[in-house]
């Protein structure tokens, strides 16, 4: 969903003059292309960048298991942000890239970030053969279904292999995902069916891991309304094989706008309209000076879902340029499973 949109822009705009909260994403998108209903995607080209849109990301999260059933979470995210529409060679390119990587254990949370200018070859995405890259970090394969994934930080690194075992999934109306009552929207699809395996390098040494991963692809030019100041985003994989993507945008008047997608084990989707899902905080954790809900009750009556979503490590705080919370979660209740939770805008 909308998730990182804001992050991305915020990071760019994180200067005193521009730090106007998450509304940074709500600023006017002069000259940029705007998402339109009834999209016709063109793959593999659409796995590549769309420089005429202001923001875009390649967002991968994974729930992993190591020796003796020890659980881990992994994040690899590449953001593109355009200062102006279009691509150009050299330092003058209006395209800016940045990336976050993290590994979460039940006790620790490692994270780091990267920045790069477009146009000089330091970062970028190529659709075919697929390669998303910034510095020495890569998510690349012959195709989106078969990829290598690497990242390094000051105190961790990972080297993983990804194999897709299901189809791409399109959110909203065939990939056109509405983000507010006022019509803000994005193009949004996912590959939630990856098997992932590889090695985490942590301070204690190398750890062989395997599990499931979920890739989000989204691009837009103005994904949030000006009065939306944060969001809670869930991607859950149930033991039944079904999956659920759900988010709620918290608006400054205290109301929320929610949306989601129910994904059958075969990839069949059902869009969930505003109000279909309810998410309520059950427990909070103080981390990095903020109070963040780290256990949620999620209700989707239409599917008989009534679950508790609890953080594997409630201190999974991403202390990057624009900080947020993101980490692996455990699902219990009417459905058991694992997933990822992202929360922004908590002060």
């Amino acid at each position, binding site marked *: 969903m909308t998730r990182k949109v804001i992050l991305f822009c915020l990071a*760019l*705009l994180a200067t005193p003059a521009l730090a106007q909260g998450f509304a940074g994403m709500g600023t006017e998108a002069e000259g940029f292309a705007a998402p339109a209903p009834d999209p016709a995607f063109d793959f593999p080209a659409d796995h590549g960048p769309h420089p005429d849109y202001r923001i875009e990301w390649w967002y991968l999260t994974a729930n992993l298991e190591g020796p003796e059933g020890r659980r881990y979470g992994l994040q690899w995210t590449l953001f593109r942000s355009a200062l102006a529409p279009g691509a150009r060679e050299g330092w*003058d390119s209006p395209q800016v890239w*940045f990336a976050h990587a993290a590994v979460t254990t039940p006790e620790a949370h490692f994270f780091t970030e990267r920045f790069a*200018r477009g146009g000089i*070859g*330091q970062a970028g995405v190529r659709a075919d053969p697929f390669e998303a890259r910034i510095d020495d970090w890569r998510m690349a394969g012959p195709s989106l279904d078969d990829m290598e994934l690497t990242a390094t*930080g000051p105190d961790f*690194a990972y080297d993983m292999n990804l194999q897709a075992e299901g189809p791409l999934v399109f959110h909203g109306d065939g990939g056109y995902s509405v983000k507010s009552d006022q019509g803000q929207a994005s193009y949004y699809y996912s590959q939630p069916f990856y098997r992932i395996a590889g090695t985490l390098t942590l301070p204690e040494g190398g750890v062989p891991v395997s599990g499931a991963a979920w890739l989000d692809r989204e691009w837009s030019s103005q994904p949030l309304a000006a009065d939306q100041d944060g969001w809670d985003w869930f991607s859950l994989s149930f033991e039944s094989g079904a999956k659920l993507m759900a988010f709620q945008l918290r608006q400054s008047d205290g109301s929320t706008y929610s949306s989601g997608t129910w994904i059958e084990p075969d990839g069949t989707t059902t869009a969930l309209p505003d109000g279909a899902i309810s998410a309520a905080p059950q427990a909070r954790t103080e981390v990095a000076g903020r109070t963040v809900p780290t256990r949620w009750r999620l209700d989707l009556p239409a599917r008989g879902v009534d679950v508790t979503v609890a953080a594997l490590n409630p201190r999974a705080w991403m202390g990057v340029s624009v900080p947020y919370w993101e980490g692996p979660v455990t699902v219990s209740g009417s459905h058991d499973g694992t997933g990822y939770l992202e929360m922004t805008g908590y002060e």
Partner: protein
Amino acid sequence: MTRAGLSALWSFWRRNPLQLFTLVAGLALATALWSGVQALNAQARASYDAAAAVLGEGRYDQLIPAAGETVAQDSYLALRRAGWQVSPVLEGPLQARQARVRLVGIDPLTAPGGVGPMTRSEAATLPAFLSEGVVFAHPGIAEALAGTLSQRVVADPGLAPDTAITDIGVAQRLLGRDDLSRLILAEDQPIGRPDLSDVAPGLIRRASQQASDIGQLTDSFHLNLTAFGLLSFAVGIFIVHGAIGLAFEQRRAMIRTLRTLGLSLRRLMVLMGLELALIALVAGGIGVALGYVLAAGLLPDVAATLEGLYGAQVAGGLQLDPVWWLSGLGIALLGAVLAGAGAFWKIIRMPVLATGARAWAVATGRGRGCQGAAALALLGLAGLGTLLGGGLIAGFASLACLLLGAALALPLVLDRLLALGEAFARGVRTEWFLADTRQQLPGLSLALMALLLAMAANIGVSTMVSSFRMTFTGFLDQRLFAELYVEAEDTTQGAAVADFVQDRGATVLPIQWVDTHIAGQAAEVYGTRVAPAYVENWRFIAQDGTDSAVWDRVADGAAAIINEQLARRADLWPGDPLPLAADRTLPIAGVVGDYGNPIGQVVIGEGLFERLFPAAAPERFGLVTDTPAALRAALQDDLGLAAGQITDQAALKQFSLGVFERTFTVTAALNVLTLAVAGFAILMSLLTLAAMRVPQLAPAWALGLTRASLGRLEVLRALVLAALTGLVALPLGLALAWLLLAVINVEAFGWRLPMFLFPGDYAVLGGFALLAALLAALWPAWRLARTPPSELLKVFANDA
């Protein structure tokens, strides 16, 4: 009781406004000199820090080219792709109208935190900086840049003078380049990176603390200033100590009365402490204000000195920092405490009913012994420090010990000299005069010490400056032997100039160099076309073979010549191998004196230079010709060179000497100030002593000496004491000069200068010292001559 106590204490100052003035003025002067120097230092440091902080030089390691001045952009990309967290920097000169701007391009996205002006500026956002082309410029050049560039120019006082910062892409476009100058290395680096030599073999890592070569070089200058500030402060504290001591002595009776009336010692101490603190704060406030005026007056010269000597840029406007105000007040308080501690201690130990003897002013035999021992110990330490010590700090410590020891020894030496005079004296009046002078020594000794320090500093520094000047002039004659110097616009024009001049029968000496590091020192490597003129003019300090043999080997690329700075710092001398590049070592054939710059220089043959540094090409030339005027005209008329591109030898010498003169303006100004403070100290000592001297003068008056002749004798006494002090100051000053030339200079600048003596200068200085003493003694003498006879008679009335 408190109120009565305060009122009694204050009444003393009301009755003795002159003493209050002495106290406040002494403290204010001490504070002014100290805080003025601190302001100068702080301003200069802030300028370097601004430069270093904005460019990350102070905090971060950097990757710089092992040779040459350029880093390929591909090296940057290769490093980033290998995981190295580096950020590109491009630096180059940009002409904007009359201003020569140092344009720095950075990439704010990859730059580590705190680098670049955007992090603290609200004038332009990061997106604007990246996409619209914003140039942050020091206010001094902002207008010139705005008139030249199409980019938006934002004035930023936080930048170093003549510096402008913009996005790396804009910088490349404006400078017409596609490469980089260096890379900033972030503190946090990912694990598992390949070695630097595998990814970018042409780059070397320069540690952050080494990065600011300017800081290292200018440290010595600031230490110099600080030492002067401290010296001035010490002189001021002498005055204050005298004034406080005197006041406490004179208030003994009052203190006794207050205490017998029931004021507790503790409360009395608190009240007197408050009184002193109040005076110190007022004096400190005045001092800080004076210090600001002083600093503002000297700043242009300090800035000129730093730029001339080191190429370091200092902003021209003095910025007031509250910390500076507070530290000025603090130093005034500290000075008052230092000066008043002894007096307080005496009052605490004084029996309640003690009489008001002038015990403080009479140096007892035991006290004298202690003083002598302390003086000897300090002089011994100074000698020891000079023999054994290394480093600038040790040099200055020796200097401080020498000055303090000599100051402490002065009263004893003067006493011995006067006693010697008494032994040879003929006539009652002379004997009385000498005995009375000896009697007054303790009261005057602090002022005389101040005079001694001021004179010695003056002799020492003027000897150093004059020695330097003679050596420097000789050095300029050696070095600037070409008649004309030409600076081409680019290498193409340079080549054209060389051809043109050669055709006209003049000798062309290309001047080309690269900035690099040798043996861990910042250094310039010059590629020299060896010509007979070099052999004839250059003089070696140390050499391996005859002059022509040395130059022959250099011409063959078989040896190098280095300057004295590099030789002393890296301990490299003729015969030693000189590591020139990673795979190239040359033996050193000669060491030359070099008083033109503080950093190391290496001279190698032109051929070898071109092989080692193929990217460098000469743009400057020395032209040896018999017809400089005609050649100059031809260069301008036929080749179209601008007049400003050609400099003749005389103008260049003038310029170099000008740099040199300004270098010592600051020192000279501080010298004059210390002498003035010493004169003031004498004046105040004489004035405060005058009142107490009446009982001693009254009998002489009664025996027939007129008041006028007593006054004349007072003036004579001041002159005799000043002259004797001058006699002591001369050897002390020469010792100081030797320390400055042979120890401090070597440590600070890397060169040792021959010491020349200037008896004429010393005579003039002696004259000034006598004049100061005369001026200081005139008013007290005039007052003495005008003392009403009734005052003198009162002495006997009291006796009765």
